[in-house]
């Protein structure tokens, strides 16, 4: 049985490799915001208030493109709606926590943190204070994201676009899902999701990001039915 501190540290260690991709992405996020003509304070406040990676970039791009605030906010909501799915998965492991703790932890649930903690939770269901792992991943991500965005705001246009730093984010997600490639059912679900995302890429408000997982989960339910 691991102590709270050990679980927290394990969460920090588990998420740390993802920093190699999250930090450059955060720098881009800060730099893009300033380049698009937004105030540095506003760009940084977004990292604090929204704390939502790609959705922050989309928000700024949509606004700077002349779209209304309603469109920008809707886009952010739709892009981040995938967190509903993460929450549904994590609720199994967090159900014993107090309502207040659930409210606080919710703020720091992000893609990479979810992926690493979910993996850890599945393997260590008997641990008593599992949520400390999630706090470890979430806090580490939060600190790195804030520092990276701030660096991007300061460095601004010094970050050469040719480096293609945006590509670091898909790389980190590849690292997360690649272990499931060997399982045929997961592979089918991944391909379904990937192809649907390309098919629906032009859907309004970037809604492909939630349409394709819903289609993929429908396929997953069919697979489960066939398995029986």
């Amino acid at each position: 049985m691991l102590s709270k501190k050990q679980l927290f540290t394990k969460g920090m260690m588990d998420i740390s490799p993802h920093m190699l991709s999250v930090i450059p992405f955060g720098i881009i996020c800060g730099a893009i915001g300033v380049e698009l003509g937004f105030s540095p304070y506003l760009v940084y406040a977004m990292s604090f208030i929204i704390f939502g990676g790609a959705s922050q970039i989309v928000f700024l791009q949509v606004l700077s493109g002349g779209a209304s605030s309603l469109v920008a906010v809707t886009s952010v909501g739709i892009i981040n709606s995938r967190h509903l799915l993460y929450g549904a998965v994590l609720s199994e492991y967090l159900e014993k926590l107090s309502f207040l703790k659930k409210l606080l932890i919710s703020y720091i649930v992000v893609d990479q943190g979810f992926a690493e903690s979910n993996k850890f939770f599945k393997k260590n269901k008997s641990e008593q204070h599992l949520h400390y792992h999630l706090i470890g991943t979430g806090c580490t991500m939060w600190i790195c994201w804030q520092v990276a965005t701030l660096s991007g705001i300061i460095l601004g246009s010094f970050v050469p676009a040719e480096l293609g730093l945006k590509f670091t984010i898909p790389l980190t997600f590849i690292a997360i899902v690649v272990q499931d490639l060997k399982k045929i059912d997961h592979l089918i679900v991944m391909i379904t999701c990937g192809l649907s995302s390309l098919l629906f890429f032009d859907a309004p408000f970037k809604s492909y990001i939630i349409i394709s997982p819903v289609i993929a989960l429908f396929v997953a339910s069919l697979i489960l039915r066939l398995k029986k």
Partner: protein
Amino acid sequence: MTWFSIIIAGILTYFTRMTMIALVDRDMLGDKIKAVLEYVPSAVFPAIIFPAIFINDYGSFIEMNDPKIFGAIVADYCWLFFKKYYCNYFIWIDFLLVFNFCYI
């Protein structure tokens, strides 16, 4: 107005994170839904990966010889072979190689 939009976007984002964790009782979900939720990582992350690899900044499909495709393949192999955390460093090197040598 922009500040107000950011606050609304932040609240909306927070609600997407919090709703299922704090407001929905796990027991409300049936066994079938719980079984399907096992597939969430596989059903969500490719929606981020595929467009980032196969679609360029202008919204059109990239060519088959684009370095991003090779980068993704190398990244896959790195993880399949080594299965350790330091593989991310390999991915990082892969990314640097692909973009520094092919694009610049």
